[in-house]
């Protein structure tokens, strides 16, 4: 039915395309096919990348570039001006450094737990179990939930009169106001992020495990390898390329975390769970005046990190697909 709708439209495009084909020849027609995509990339990806530099080196709260004044490296100097990088309070942009610290801790914990738990879950799902499809779905479905929904689900569980506190009191413990304690709020931010994304990495690792041929395991059995040695000497090394991909992917996504944590804690209490993207968002868009310069400068630093990480990821995938 949908096809019947699109079909006349596509035939309509055929006429001008035939004209272009006669005019330019088949090979140069490739550019016509590329054009819409390249226009969108150019306008909404490349132009912004270039403009980002322009914003990073200019000041004032004006959005139009010609109204902005050149300030040189001032934005960077301020961002990086710290007496002690380990103590955000000694920095000029203390909130930026707090968000950097938070993000660093967040990544270490989130990626660590995520990769560990995904591996464990993938190994469990790879065993001879009943209803594997069902259990795979159980671990996977939160991946599809929107970040705001994830945040609200856990907010409701963790609220002062929530079910978790009820459970604590039922076993004789005291209830906790989770969201007002900076450490707990941070812990639950990491927790819900792992909860939401774990299924995705589990799926990739499970596919990696299932790609290991069965008869290699059988050969190991015949070679009298005990299960622990089979895991260490066969499973782990053969899973390593997949593990690396998962690790880098998790890092790339980890540094960009914003949605679910922002909707969950709003960055609080105080700035205990403010991550880098939230800093950029609040500096550039939510506050008054809108400090586009520092926001762009911070974006640039983050982009640099992402370029390196994505480069590593592409290198790994290429190497493992060639190998």
């Amino acid at each position: 039915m949908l096809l019947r709708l699109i079909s006349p439209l596509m035939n309509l495009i055929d006429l001008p395309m035939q004209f272009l084909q006669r005019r330019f020849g088949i090979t140069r027609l490739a550019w016509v096919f590329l054009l819409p995509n390249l226009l969108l990339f150019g306008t909404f990806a490349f132009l912004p990348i270039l403009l980002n530099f322009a914003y990073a080196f200019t000041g004032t709260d004006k959005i139009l570039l010609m109204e902005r004044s050149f300030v040189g490296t001032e934005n960077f100097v301020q961002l990086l001006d710290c007496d002690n990088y380990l103590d955000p309070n000694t920095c000029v942009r203390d909130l930026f450094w707090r968000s950097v610290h938070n993000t660093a801790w967040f990544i270490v914990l989130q990626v660590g737990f995520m990769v560990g738990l995904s591996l464990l879950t993938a190994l469990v799902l790879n065993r001879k179990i009943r209803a594997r499809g069902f259990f795979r779905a159980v671990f996977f479905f939160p991946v599809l939930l929107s970040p705001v929904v994830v945040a609200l689900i856990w907010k409701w569980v963790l609220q002062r009169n929530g079910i978790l506190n009820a459970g604590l009191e039922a076993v004789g413990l005291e209830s906790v106001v989770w969201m007002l304690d900076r450490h707990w709020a941070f812990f639950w931010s990491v927790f819900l992020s792992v909860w939401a994304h774990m299924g995705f990495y589990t799926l990739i690792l499970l596919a990696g495990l299932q790609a290991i041929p069965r008869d290699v395991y059988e050969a190991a059995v015949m070679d009298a390898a005990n299960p622990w040695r089979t895991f260490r000497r066969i499973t782990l090394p053969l899973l390593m390329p997949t593990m690396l991909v998962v690790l880098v992917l998790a890092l790339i996504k980890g540094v960009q975390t914003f949605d679910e944590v922002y909707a969950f804690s709003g960055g609080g209490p105080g700035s205990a769970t403010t991550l880098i993207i939230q800093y950029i968002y609040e500096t550039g868009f939510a506050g008054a005046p809108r400090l586009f310069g520092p926001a762009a400068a911070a974006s640039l630093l983050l982009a640099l990190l992402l370029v390196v990480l994505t480069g590593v990821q592409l290198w790994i995938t290429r190497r493992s697909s060639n190998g």
Partner: protein
Amino acid sequence: MGSAGRFLTRTRGRGRLHWTDWLTYGYLVLGIFLMFGPVIWLVFSSFKTDAELDRFPPRFLPYAQQTVSLDGYDKPLPLFRVTGGDLEGEVVAQVRRIGLTAQVVRPDAPGEVIKIARGERVPVERVRLATENYRDLFERFDFMRYFWNSTFITLVATAITLLVNSMAAFALSKYQFRGRAVVMALVIGVLMVPQSVVLVPLFMVTREFGMLDSLWGVIIPGAATPTGVFLLRQYMLTIPDEILDAARMDKASEWKIFWRIILPLSAPAIAVLAILSIMWRWNDFLWPLIALSRSENYTLQLALNSFQGEMHTQWSSLLAMTVLTLLPVALVFAFLQKYIATGIASTGGK
């Protein structure tokens, strides 16, 4: 050590359940509890009245106090069972509460007001779904508008993404032309720098196009995805070039080859990209948060987020709205579970 190892590999004790199997199923049951539990709790809670939501410790099922409409009273009166004093065991309707006493009437004699102690009565309750939580969403809040905004953005953006990305992938997989390597490098470049790190200039560009605070301002900037180009190109490379040559011998134009031959043959990859795009768009948060400012343009995600700020005490509406937001995803997932999983695993995400 051996047994711990056995847990980590495929093999299993023969016949009877090994203790590692118990461990496995224990883990899986814990998994169900942790992954499903909170969602189920949310759904149950969304059917509770505000009074019940405030209750601590909470009860699992949604209870509501029973009421009765009596002559001479405007509103339905809440029912109580008396636990002490003269009326012990009787069910009465409460007219008013003053300090430590409550004025009640017998339902069969609404004229005769009796005073009892507050501590000597418990509410008469039964399980009832507070569907008014949901009704309110449609009546008091503009739920349908947000739903429509989200749907519109999702469908239109996905359609544009599919068309634009498949055209580019076709050119990059089936034509040998100078500059192809450069274009591929550009695509990788875009992959490296996601939207979230060019927010400021993207904001400016969108503003210059006059698309700020409109649905198009959400749709267009992300319409061409590098992931989509990669995914489709990879698939189209597996289609033999002889098919194109055969079509050319049949005098098919290049556009016809694209849309009558390449597109249908790439259907599996296109389906995967469609599912991914729908998911990204429906759940998108950061860019809409920046690009949309008037609340009538809000997507469901934005509305949900702003409601949780405005109505932090009114959980009943918030929970119902959360459930409605996750419902489409749950439905799609239930039907396409296997397909989504393989699709997402094959691309390695965004």
